[in-house]
């Protein structure tokens, strides 16, 4: 793994007609990285992925791959693989023929082709399904065929569109392990698109959070999860109590509130529900809702500065609806946000 970018998007602008979907995006990706493009629908993550694949023309900017400018290289000459969300297997061809499709177009024939297809199917554990039609496979199996079909082409970059979203919980874990294994064994650079933060956190080396066609934050899963830098990212990864900071005080609907500890210098502070201290502190709130989640119990508090979500261990005594509690938002526990929008 070298530090020079293997795939880089430079000042990339993408548009559908006059509607700009991605504006001026810069993103360097190292060889062998597993990167997640994370964001809500409409944030431009899929658009960006389609541009890397060459399925969407670039309005301005550049896409460089392995030292070459591929901005104007057609999709069929890019050596970029894509596993579609719907898998997009060819329904009229057997599993074997699906995997052989691209290799045949490369001119491979005979025993060389056969060996390659067989090893591709074996690597995803589907060698005994070679003669089945896609319609005779489960969703998880179809996805593994789609993965093998792309991987036998030895792509420089493998793109995956929402790779886990169509699978049930058990298959998700299986596929996640599978993707990490393929990535480790082949060293292929992988980029996947997802709207599910848990998926991105579990799978990626690096996460790119996108919003409205722009990059909101890039970081390791730990960075994104523990140190969001904007209110958008904080909200996206589960910080449910977010407030802007003005003159060192927390700005709420009932004015500026002093926080315990030294005055924060950030533009905003964010607390996960379990960072809220319940039962002691300078503020008071009324329990408006409660839900039990096995290990923990969540409370929704009505407070002078709006609703606050708090989470405490289930072993603590439960508070009844309507009870009046004191609580604290400890500034030292909060994630400081440099941007508040």
């Amino acid at each position, binding site marked *: 793994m070298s530090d020079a970018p293997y795939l880089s998007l430079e000042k990339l602008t993408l548009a559908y007609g006059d509607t700009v979907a991605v504006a001026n995006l810069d993103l360097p990706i190292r060889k062998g990285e597993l990167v997640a493009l994370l964001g809500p629908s409409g944030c431009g993550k899929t658009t960006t992925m389609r541009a890397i694949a060459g399925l969407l023309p670039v309005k301005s900017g550049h896409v460089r791959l392995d030292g070459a400018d591929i901005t104007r290289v057609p999709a*069929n000459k890019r050596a970029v693989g894509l596993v579609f969300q719907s898998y997009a297997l060819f329904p009229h061809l057997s599993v074997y023929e699906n995997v052989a499709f691209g290799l045949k177009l490369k001119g491979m024939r005979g025993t060389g082709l056969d060996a390659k297809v067989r090893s591709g199917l074996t690597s995803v554990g589907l060698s005994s399904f070679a003669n089945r039609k896609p319609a005779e496979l489960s969703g998880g199996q179809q996805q593994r065929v789609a993965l093998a079909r792309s991987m036998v082409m030895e792509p420089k970059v493998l793109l995956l569109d929402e790779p886990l979203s169509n699978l049930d919980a058990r298959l998700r874990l299986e596929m996640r392990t599978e993707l990490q294994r393929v990535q480790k064994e082949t060293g292929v650079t992988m980029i996947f698109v997802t709207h599910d933060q848990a998926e991105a956190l579990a799978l990626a080396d690096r996460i790119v959070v996108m919003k409205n066609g722009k990059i909101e934050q890039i970081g390791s899963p730990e960075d994104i999860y523990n140190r969001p830098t904007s209110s958008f990212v904080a909200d996206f990864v589960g910080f449910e109590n977010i407030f802007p900071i003005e003159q060192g005080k927390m700005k709420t609907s009932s004015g500026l509130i002093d926080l315990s500890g030294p005055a924060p210098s950030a533009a905003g502070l964010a607390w996960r529900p379990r960072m809220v201290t319940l039962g002691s502190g300078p503020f008071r709130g009324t329990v408006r809702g409660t839900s039990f989640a096995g290990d923990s119990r969540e409370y929704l508090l009505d407070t002078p500065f709006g609703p606050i979500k708090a989470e405490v261990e289930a072993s603590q005594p439960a508070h009844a609806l309507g009870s009046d509690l004191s609580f604290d938002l400890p500034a030292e526990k909060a994630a400081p946000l440099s941007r508040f929008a």
Partner: protein
Amino acid sequence: MSARSLFIPLTLFLVLGFLIGPFLIIVAASFSGGETLAFPPQGFSLRWILKVFTVESFRASFGMSMFLAIGGTAAALMLGIPASYALSRYKLPGAEIVRTVVSAPIIVPGIIVGLALLRYIVVPFQVGITPALFLAHTALVLPYAVRVVSASLDNLRSDIEEAAVLLGSSRLGAFFRVVMPNIRGGILSAFILGFVTSFNQVPVSLFLSGPGVRTLPIDMIAYMEIVFDPSVAALSSLLAFLSIGIVFAAERFLGFSRYV
């Protein structure tokens, strides 16, 4: 049984009789031993069925009808498949207008289409009889080709074409490698529907037929004006069984009714 419970079976019987009756009468008449087209048939013989094959003009017009049905339908598919593809895959301005214009020959009565073609195309441009018939049959079959092929294209995911491109195929190659094989059933159904439509076409052909060049249905009308023997009934029966055979085979092997 009360009058009420008899009503539905009786109605059903009458409707079926009305639909199938004439066909049964024709079939019965074609095995007649008599000299004129009559029902009930007088005696039983195969001689009118055998006579059909000896009438020179029937052979020529059968050839013409086959040529128009096969050639016209093939031409309509060559125009209709790309048109259907464009209509189903791209959001084109005016796509709905194109759809409506393409479907017009289904809605506009054949007699008007025939007259219009004769008055405004064939006569002013001195188009020959055979080319005129060919063009007319192509136009008449086109709506069926577009409708049936569109239906099967709409059922096919479009991302498989992108998948094929990313595996190294050109756009056009992707169409032939992954689109065509998956709409083959629709294309064959459109061909059969077009073939039957063209073969049974009367009003348009009536206007465009000319000296020495006729389609089979027009020739049968002309024959009946001169000779009123059961051979026309015999020919009709043969054609009906041919159509039934084709549609039955299509349904059996292609699931024809899914597309129509």
